[in-house]
């Protein structure tokens, strides 16, 4: 199956580990990812706070570029996923958005020739490959590994593919890989990613309650589907510890990294060494 | 025979099949020739329009007009023939209800011209030349007929006495019509030569309560020859179509295309069919209905293959009510 890959800005920098594990996993699953040519930043949560029309035109350009090629657009980042889906939704629902985007595109030499389907990588893996096939492909089950799954916000809300309050996709996938999935009420509670720089006090509290519950339930690590969540929970853990007087050292891993391990890929190809909180000690359990 | 029948046969917007169908009556064509003097038949004999214009009103006994009215020439001839004929017969599906050319009413003349003179891959027409009604040639001005915005059935243009249905009419139907005319044993004005009931009535296929779970096209399945075709997902026009064709299609395991036109009590063949099909689609809600409907290839072309110009929304006389 051929897909169009929209990595988003992070996967070329702070989330390089995510990108590495994605590349490894999709190869094992015989999925072909072709990067959307010359894609631009989706605007994340910043542009929509500053200029409504700009926040529509930025993701729309990516869709226009993707529409030139075949295949669904696969997005690994929750924030990008939501931005792209939202512009699609708005263009379908609001005539005025459609008209404005078309008008500006016309002046900039762009044309929207179709509406490619936008899907999160997790969604594609679960729906197109399927749990049954993944189960059969597991070479090294994640036995004894206790995980909590953190879907975050924008994967499931407001246009996501899973239950917005109690998503199941990640749980099902991790169980299929052999990990023990612990109950986790923070699954979809926001990590404060968009506030971490400007209002760290607010964001740190949010990070803390996620990490603290993961500790309380006895998880070896938190599994994430988004580079923003990973960065927030991983890189700021030290500062959060300092602020709340804790000694948490919870590794934050991408679902693709664990998937890669279970499918028998080489540890070093999955970017696991790039975690600020190293996951290796926790991973000793699975050998 | 002293009083040989004066017969005119004219070909308007049609494929020519109706003319061929007359020849298809085999040896009976001789009987026709024996009974009738053909005063006009462009496909078979050389006549000029002036010959026709010279004729007095009533000098033609019967005119068999095949084809729909699409151009100014066809309208002019329809009126000229009507003026001179005692009996005007709409011959074949196109003359009767507009026929396949009538499907052009789904689009505008402009769209058709764009497709033909501009958009098809094989067209090179850089100067965007379009059909014109006048052309100044080196030998003087030439005139071409005007193509109308829509297609008309014959009876929307002139008064019609009888209808001979079919695309084309079967030899049996043609012979029944000719026999009636020759013997003077004519049905009431406005009659359609054919059955009165629907094809479904005489169809011997086994019928049960109907539900359509999926629409199929004839090439997609080998239909069970004993069972109702509609129940097998093939859109068969049998229920809304006049009997009298001899079941040629259904006997050969093909769904009825509806060329004998609406049966006696059906006022709009296409609408009736759409209504009936919609009623038996096996669906739960709007969404599943839309999904199932999407599997029906070209519903307008199927339901109105022969009768669009005579459908309720198009049915009015050319040049007023």
């Amino acid at each position, binding site marked *: 199956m051929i897909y169009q890959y929209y990595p988003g800005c992070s996967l070329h920098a702070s989330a390089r580990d995510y990108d590495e594990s994605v590349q490894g996993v999709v190869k094992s699953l015989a999925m072909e990812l072709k990067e959307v040519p010359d894609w631009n930043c989706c605007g994340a949560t910043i542009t929509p706070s500053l200029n409504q029309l700009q926040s529509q035109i930025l993701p729309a350009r990516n869709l226009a570029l993707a529409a030139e090629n075949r295949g669904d657009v696969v997005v690994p980042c929750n924030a990008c996923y939501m931005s792209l889906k939202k512009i699609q939704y708005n263009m379908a629902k609001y005539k005025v958005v459609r008209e404005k985007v078309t008008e500006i595109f016309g002046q900039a030499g762009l044309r929207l020739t179709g509406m490619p389907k936008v899907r999160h990588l997790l969604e594609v893996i679960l729906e197109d490959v399927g749990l049954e096939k993944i189960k059969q492909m597991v070479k090294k089950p994640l036995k004894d590994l206790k995980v909590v799954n953190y879907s975050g916000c924008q994967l499931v809300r407001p246009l996501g593919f899973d239950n917005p*309050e109690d998503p199941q996709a990640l749980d099902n996938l991790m169980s299929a890989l052999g990990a023990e999935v612990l109950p986790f*009420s923070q699954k979809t509670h926001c990590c404060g990613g968009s506030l971490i720089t400007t209002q760290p006090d607010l964001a740190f509290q949010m990070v803390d309650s996620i990490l603290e519950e993961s500790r309380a339930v006895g998880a070896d690590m938190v599994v994430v589907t988004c580079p923003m969540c990973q960065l927030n929970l991983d890189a700021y853990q030290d500062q959060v510890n300092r602020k709340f007087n804790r000694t948490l050292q919870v590794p934050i891993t991408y679902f693709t990294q664990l998937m890669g391990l279970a499918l028998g890929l080489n540890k070093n190809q999955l970017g696991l060494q790039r975690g600020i909180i190293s996951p290796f000690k926790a991973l000793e359990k699975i050998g | 025979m002293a009083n040989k029948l004066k017969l005119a046969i004219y070909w308007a917007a049609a494929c020519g099949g109706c003319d061929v169908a007359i020849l298809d009556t085999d040896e009976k064509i001789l009987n026709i020739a024996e009974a009738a003097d053909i005063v006009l038949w462009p496909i078979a004999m050389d006549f000029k329009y002036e010959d026709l214009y010279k004729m007095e009103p009533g000098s033609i006994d019967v005119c068999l007009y095949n084809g729909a009215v699409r151009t100014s020439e066809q309208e002019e001839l329809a009126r000229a023939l009507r003026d001179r004929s005692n009996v005007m017969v709409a011959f074949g599906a196109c003359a009767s209800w507009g026929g396949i050319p009538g499907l052009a009413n789904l689009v505008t003349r402009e769209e058709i011209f764009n497709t033909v003179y501009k958009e098809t891959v094989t067209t090179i027409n850089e100067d965007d030349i379009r059909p014109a009604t006048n052309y100044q040639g080196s030998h003087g001005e030439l005139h071409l007929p005007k193509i109308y915005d829509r297609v008309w059935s014959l009876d929307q243009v002139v008064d019609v006495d009888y209808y001979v249905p079919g695309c084309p009419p079967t030899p049996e139907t043609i012979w029944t019509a000719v026999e009636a005319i020759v013997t003077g044993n004519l049905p009431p004005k406005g009659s359609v030569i054919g059955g009165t009931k*629907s094809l479904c009535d005489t169809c011997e296929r086994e*019928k049960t309560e*109907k539900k359509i779970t999926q629409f199929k096209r004839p090439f997609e399945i080998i239909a069970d020859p004993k069972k109702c075709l509609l129940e097998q997902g093939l859109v068969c026009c049998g229920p809304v179509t006049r009997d009298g064709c001899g079941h040629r299609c259904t006997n050969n395991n093909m769904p009825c295309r509806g060329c004998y036109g609406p049966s*006696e009590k059906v006022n709009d063949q296409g609408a009736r069919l759409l209504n009936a099909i919609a*009623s038996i689609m096996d669906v739960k809600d709007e969404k599943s209905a839309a999904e199932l409907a999407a599997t029906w290839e070209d519903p307008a072309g199927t339901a109105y293959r022969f009768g669009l110009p005579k459908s309720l929304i198009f049915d009015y006389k050319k040049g007023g009510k």
Partner: protein
Amino acid sequence: MSGQKIGVYVCHCGSNINGVVNCSKVAEEAAQLDGVVVSKDYKYMCSDPGQEMIKADIKEKGLDRVVVAACSPRMHEPTFRKALEGGGLNGYLLEMANIREHVSWVTKDKEEATKKALALVKGAVNRVKYHQPIEEKEVPVNDATLVIGAGIAGIQAALQVAEAGHKVYLIEKKQYIGGNMAKFDKTFPTLDCAACILTPKMVDVGQNPNIELYTSSEVIKVDGYVGNFTVTVKEKPRYINHEKCTGCGDCATACIMKNRIPHEFDEGLSKRGAAYIPFPQAVPLKAVIDDQNCLLLTRKKCTLACVKACGRKAINFNQHETIHEFNVGSIILATGFDLFDAKRAPQYGYGRYPNVINGLQFERMTNASGPTSGHILLEDGTEPKSVAIIHCVGSRDENYNKYCSRVCCMSSVKFAHMVKDHTDAEVYEFYIDMRTFGKGYEEFYNRVQEEGVHFIRGKGAEVAQKNGRLVVKAEDTLLGQYREIPVDLVILNTALEPRVDAEKVAQTLGISRSADGFFLESHIKLDPVTTTTDGIYLAGCCQSPKDIPDSVAQGSAAASQSLAIIATGKVKISPISASVDENQCAGCRICVGLCPYRAIKLNEETLRAEINQAVCKGCGTCAAACPSGAIKVSHFDNDQLLAQIEGVLA
């Protein structure tokens, strides 16, 4: 169609129509129409003088057709039909143009409105020319009544019909009667014990000779029409001989599955065996064998301890389902409601935190014969120190049900009182709006406020667990502050929903449902008890969420509808019906499966469709679908409709 004499009457409806439509102008222009001999406008056409005017014109001017341009025919068509009959004309020679609902109430521009009104009048004039006189039909009524559902509404209806001396077949899906009310403890606003007021009625049902009670039974087919329904009922095997069983419970004690299956009647708060007594006051008080869990029935392997324990040899595993057929004149539907499954709103933690319960579970908890013998207890067996009650879970919410479930405000207030009454706990009640509309309700709310309950105006948004304690997150909207309130027990007052099988029931009975999924009444204000199918009536929560007083009232109302047609002995059925032209029918069978009233059958000899005139409602579905145009609906045939369209467009 020439030579007809048509009278046109344009009604002002006070200023309702005339305020927007120029009625005299409409009347003037209508006078010019072909066939119209009289055209008048008048202030209130439906008044006596208005009707008299029509009658007089019919007699004096020899009118043979009448058009009334006024309100909806739903409102006044019967009125004007009678006026025509009073003048000596058949009532069906009337056509109404609705220039109120269709014009004056929905059009602002006066000129446009007048134009539109005239167009509708032209259509009506054109149409009425094709009208034919039709005679109404009368059929006799069977004096038995079927009641489906034996909750409080169904019981009330059944008792009332039976006490009037008529036969009632009472059908209940469960093994016992009483419905949801039987599970309750106290009832608002008087705090009567539910059992104390319901049990006597349940006993009456069991003893009334006019009531034939069928539990474990479902209606699977309904044929016929008002006055003459034939109903097929399936009675499931109970594996207990009711003649012999005394309800002693020895089998329940013996069952090897004892205490292993969540007990539905206790909403899962207690466990039972595969053989059990539903509850101590059950009617009928007989043992039940649960065929989903009985080892013998599911795995064909069991020690048969129950059989050995039963001293009266009442257990019989060879029972099969039985089919019954009843002839009745009317049907009362009282199938009740389902409770919203709070797991559908995971943010409230139902199913995840054991101390989050729903309202019915709380009822069982406080019920003296319930799983905790009337004590309000946490999962660990201790009493809660603080309790939260959350309103509107699944109600008033676009994500679940848009409607207000109507009983939850009052039941929440009652829960708060019960907690206060049984424990020393603090009670926090989270509400959006407090709706205490019934008799004595506001007073009850006032009383509970004074008992010291904390009423927090703000919808409980989430239930979380923090440091081992439940926390309710909400905004105290009157403070304008976000609050997290730690509690030990959360009661979710969940929505009342249509029964999960409501669609199936609606199809079996040929009735409709409204957008919210409850069964649809004929008129929400003026006819809340009847359905659009004559002879089928609604009672209780199957029509919309209701409290006990309203359910009882509607049960009585439905009974009086049944009794009314029994008393008349015959019913008029609408003469507007479909008929088949045998010469045109091709026997294609498209119509057969479509008829919502099952009035059409294919005559296997002639291979033509046949319509049972008594059953046909004249809905026109078959006529629209008939491909050969063989089916005609009287009063709505093609000539009439096309003439009307032409008139409107002219």
